[in-house]
């Protein structure tokens, strides 16, 4: 992993081994401490500390007027957050699962995302909408979705998805500090450890991985910077979230010198890192867990052909979830695991 390489002298501050849950909690802890305009609210986030424990202990530390439970109304959570943002707060609103975000879409898309524009900067909505996404935990079709493409096509929104604890904390702090509204998607299968898609193998905890070494203090990972997590020369893999780990495993298993790019910020996007890589490798595949048609990968394919067409030696492949609801029993048939990514890598290299 080279995600640390671009980062400044924060390595001097003490580090701790953190899971992604602990890193996310630490980001909110740091920001609640630093900025008394930061508030955290959502379903079950207060006394209980969240169904995934991301806010555990924060209410006890900062009080119930800054960390509190919300009614089961995603529309209300998002709308109240927009109003708080207009007042001058920096709300961190949790949607318990990304699958539950749809009642909040009007407030996120038509309100938070456009408030700065439509009021010519008089009002802004610097809200961070946190939501766990993705499958791999037998969540079925209402606890597994990856709706990032709904947000990446909305002008005025930033959409972010980390793949490891270090990035999760740095990106979440950057999101909370951002004056733009941010949809912060947390791949829940990565909460407790990296996951390469080999669901039948023992679970690896984050403590076995260097990216679990996280500064305890404040630091940011910039919101428009991709990370080259594995440099390579043969083919570029564009991915983010859980499938970063799948792509790394597939490259290793196939013995293909792939350059794996973790996009981290899906929009606005670090296009330069992508085009530099594809012009070098001349081959590209796109991997994500979300459904394929009109998925975020379609935009990536389009950008790559637009900017790198004359450098390409093979068609760009997409490896994604199928265009079906996320099934329960057939989860591993749905999930774009290392087998499918490996096959795509082989096909791409054969052209």
């Amino acid at each position: 992993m080279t995600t640390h390489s671009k980062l400044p002298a924060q390595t001097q501050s003490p580090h701790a081994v953190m899971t992604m849950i602990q890193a996310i909690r630490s980001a909110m802890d740091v920001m609640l401490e630093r900025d008394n305009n930061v508030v955290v609210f959502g379903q079950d986030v207060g006394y209980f500390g969240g169904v995934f424990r991301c806010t555990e202990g924060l209410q006890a530390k900062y009080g119930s007027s800054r960390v509190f439970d919300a009614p089961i109304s995603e529309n209300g959570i998002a709308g109240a957050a927009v109003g708080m943002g207009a007042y001058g707060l920096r709300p961190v609103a949790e949607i318990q699962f990304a699958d539950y975000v749809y009642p909040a879409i009007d407030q996120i898309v038509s309100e938070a995302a456009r408030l700065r524009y439509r009021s010519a900067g008089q009002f802004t909505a610097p809200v961070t909408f946190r939501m766990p996404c993705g499958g791999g935990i037998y969540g079925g079709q209402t606890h597994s979705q990856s709706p990032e493409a709904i947000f990446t096509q909305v002008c005025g929104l930033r959409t972010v998805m980390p793949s490891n604890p270090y990035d999760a904390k740095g990106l979440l702090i950057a999101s909370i500090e951002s004056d733009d509204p941010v949809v912060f998607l947390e791949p829940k299968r990565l909460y407790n450890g990296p996951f390469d898609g080999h669901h039948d193998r023992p679970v690896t905890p984050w403590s076995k991985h260097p990216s679990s070494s996280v500064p305890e203090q404040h630091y940011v990972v910039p919101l428009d910077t991709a990370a080259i997590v594995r440099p390579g020369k043969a083919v570029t893999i564009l991915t983010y979230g859980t499938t970063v780990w799948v792509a790394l495993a597939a490259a290793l298993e196939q013995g293909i010198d792939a350059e794996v790019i973790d996009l981290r910020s899906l929009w606005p996007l670090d296009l330069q890192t992508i085009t530099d890589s594809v012009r070098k490798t001349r081959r590209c595949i796109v991997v994500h867990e979300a459904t394929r048609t009109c998925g975020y990968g379609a935009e990536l394919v389009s950008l790559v052909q637009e900017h790198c067409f004359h450098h390409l030696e093979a068609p760009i492949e997409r490896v994604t979830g199928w265009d079906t609801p996320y099934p329960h029993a057939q989860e591993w048939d749905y999930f774009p695991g290392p087998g499918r990514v490996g096959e795509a890598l082989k096909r791409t290299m054969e052209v």
Partner: protein
Amino acid sequence: MNNTEQLCLHVPEPSGRPGCETDFSYLQLSPAGFADKPDVAVEPVGTRELATQLIRVLDDGGEAVGPWAEAIPVEILRKGLTDMMKTRIFDSRMLIAQRQKKLSFYMQSLGEEAIGVGQTLALRPQDMHFPTYRQQSILIAREVSLVDMICQLLSNERDPLKGRQLPVMYSVRESGFFSISGNLGTQYIQAVGWAMASAIKGDDKIAAGWIGDGATAASDFHSALTFAHVYRAPVILNIVNNQWAISTFQAIAGGEGITLATRGLGYGIASLRVDGNDFLAVYAVSKWAAERARRNLGPTLIEWVTYRAGPHSTSDDPSKYRPADDWSHFPLGDPIARLKQHLIRIGAWSDEEHEATHKALEAEIATAQKEAESYGNFTNGHIPSAADMFEGVYKELPEHLRLQRQQLGK
């Protein structure tokens, strides 16, 4: 035994339609002075009667009567009347400008002027309104620059909103007027969020949310009431029940056989139903609700009973769906005429002063319009620059928008 009936779907209808005079008895009016005035610390359940009766202060003779009649400084009453007149004259001139195709679109507030003016004068300048598109009276009462307002309507080079919004979708933060969305209802829960923020910060400012009878059916309305009650938010939740949502009667929003004020009771919110064409009632009830909010006693829901005297917007013709002369039969009358009558009765106004004020306001608005039009309008090319279209989507211009601006060639 066969007592089953064939099922049939009930689709509510108004009592009046073109060619059939409206029976306004459905409004269930109370006489002026009839409704009680509870202490501001009343438990929400104690407002049950007030949610179904109608709080009125001005009687048919223009006298202030009953427990809600209070000593309002004459200067406030005179400013209230002047602001209402100014709103109406402004609307009528902008309507003409729209017919002259200087504006793409307009929405007037004819008949509803007392509500926005009365509440604004009852609140503090730092309190934040989250209005709909029919509360321009708030801007008038807060004395926002008419030139700025008209430049917004014209989408010209001086438009404070840079040509980005439909006419009437104002935003004036410095005057406590939140950006109007155009998506109905969204601002209601935002008002609650703003009020929660004020409470979180230990501030003394309160919020006023505004919604129409039609949009009380929207989910944001119900989210707003839930959140306002749960967190005891310092907010006034106004429902302007003007009976019509474009062509649909308020019964289609769920108002048949109930009052919209009773919606609040089920959420645990103090709820009042008030004559919205009675400036004295608007002012007194707004003061009461503001005091509740400021004393951490919680939100108040107020249904203002009024009538949308004009069309929904310049894009519809109400004579197609309701009697053309409906407003002249509306039992709560014209808010301007009623306050004028009261002021004359107490010796604080006269027909001559009314006439002189009217002329002065017309001249003031004409002058402002002339100045605003000198900065151009959206049809003659004097609009904000095309390059500016890409600004303000994000705080900083991102690379992809810089490229798209280049592609546009600006």
